[in-house]
């Protein structure tokens, strides 16, 4: 009796026929996520710009007569770049969180888990789509603010670098939140109790030096502070932290979050039963 052939399932794993990195698969996932985001452009692109303008109007109105003098003008021009960055960051984290949470709650996650994509490719594709969606949302916001208030925009490439790093960081954060939150209440809770306080305590509206003592430490140990500060520095021409240091801290935080997200996706934490 001839030896039966080895069942295919026991054969050694074939090298991935599409190369070490499945670029086409990752690009497809990015495209799907971006299309999901762009499909709802009135809420995803326009609404954040509208809210940012509303915040500015509120500040200008609350300043009242002080808005005319140089000190009041300094408050407004301090807030504007922070708000643009705030919009970018919020959109990035929302995109990845909502995609993951929605897919799991609707039970369509296998669409993403079945294709031959590795954990790093999955996390990378989700984060790329999140970061790009944040940057896209930032464009109308930046343009509106720039047209109305005549900001200097000292170093556009540096500003773009900080926006990109910040958006990628928040998109990774969104993957973590999306994995953690298996119900919509949990998504809401993560935003209300973790992300929004983190974003508000990061020098969007107030210089970190002006915060009272325990809070300024929170702000200083918050990586979001460094990307917002760096972006503001690139727009206005002066930052609290040197830009290179800010960039380094932002990149380090981003790398740490990336490793964590890739590890959790690889383990299938709350993704696979």
């Amino acid at each position, binding site marked *: 009796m001839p030896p039966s052939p080895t069942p295919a399932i026991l054969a050694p794993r074939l090298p991935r026929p599409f190369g070490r990195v499945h670029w086409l698969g990752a690009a497809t996932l990015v495209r799907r996520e971006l299309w999901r985001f762009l499909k709802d452009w009135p809420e995803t692109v326009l609404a954040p710009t509208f809210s940012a303008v509303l915040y500015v109007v509120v500040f200008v109105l609350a300043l009242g007569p002080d808005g005319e003098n140089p000190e009041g003008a300094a408050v407004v021009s301090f*807030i504007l770049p922070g708000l643009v960055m705030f919009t970018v960051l919020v959109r990035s984290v929302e995109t990845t969180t909502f995609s993951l949470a929605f897919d799991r709650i609707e039970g369509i996650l296998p669409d993403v888990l079945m294709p031959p994509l590795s954990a790093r490719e999955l996390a990378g594709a989700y984060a790329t789509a999140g970061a790009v969606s944040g940057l896209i949302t930032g464009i109308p916001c930046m343009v509106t603010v720039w047209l109305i208030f005549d900001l200097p925009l000292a170093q556009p490439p540096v500003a773009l670098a900080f926006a990109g790093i910040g958006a990628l960081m928040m998109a990774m954060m969104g993957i973590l939140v999306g994995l953690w939150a298996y119900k919509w209440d949990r998504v809401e809770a993560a935003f209300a*109790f973790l992300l929004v*306080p983190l974003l508000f305590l990061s020098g969007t509206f107030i210089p970190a030096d002006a915060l009272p003592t325990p809070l300024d430490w929170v702000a200083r140990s918050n990586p979001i502070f460094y990307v917002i500060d760096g972006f503001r520095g690139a727009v206005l021409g002066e930052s609290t932290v040197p830009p290179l240091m800010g960039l380094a801290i932002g990149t380090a935080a981003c790398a740490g979050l990336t490793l964590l997200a890739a590890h959790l996706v690889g383990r299938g934490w709350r993704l696979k039963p």
Partner: protein
Amino acid sequence: MTVEMPRQPPPLPPPLPPPLPAFRLARDFGRVHWGGIWTVFRRDMIMFRKFWPISLAGPFLNVMMYLMILSLALGPERDTAAGAQVIPFIAPGLILFAILTRAAESSAFTLMLRKMEGDIGELLSPPLLPGEALAGIALAALTTGLIGGVPVALGVLLTTDVPVANPLLALVVAVLTSTLTGFFGVWIGLWSQRWDHMAAIFGFVLIPVAFLSGVFARVADMPEPLNLIVWASPIAYAIDAFRAAFTGEHTIPVWISLAVLAGSALALALFCRYLFAIGYRLKA
């Protein structure tokens, strides 16, 4: 020859239909279905309690954050004459803002959830008149608005030194305002056909209108067209009267504000009752 056929018994007359009642039967639970109203109310209150991190703690955190940011960015820390007056001016408006958004969210959310999950029939099939179902929902909105306002008011009043000149007036204004926005929430819940519609009305209509209605700045100090447009929204009168209850400062006489609030709440209530009665976006 004729055969005498046995005579057929005459056919029985058809049975008489039971006599129609001359008038509609009285609803056996009385003229107003109090039990039904109470049940609709209690159902919404259970939902409010179940979602307390979002419905109670979320707005509280939000308002405290606004207060902190405004006081650090614009307020006393800046050591200017205008800066010192910012917080007493803004604090009452923020409390009322929390109350009115909470009330609107409550009624809009309960109607939307029922519509989206397909159990709106639970509200339409019981023997409730449109006005009774509406009353239950609006009462729940009013109550959740007021309950949601308690931690916000405590937090704001304990961290700032805002005087409370007239607590009774504050309560009356809070009740009228949350009734008004509770009915507005009913309209949002009826009109929206998807969750995004509801979010859009909140994001593009209710919150901007509330923000610009004098929460953060004196209406008189606003630029030219805005300071007149603002008075078209009843929320501006609500905030003006509510501030009068705290600091005593107001632009419009308080009784006019109260009349505007009560009148617009009544008008919205009648409008919503009409929409309920015709089943606007409720019945196929």
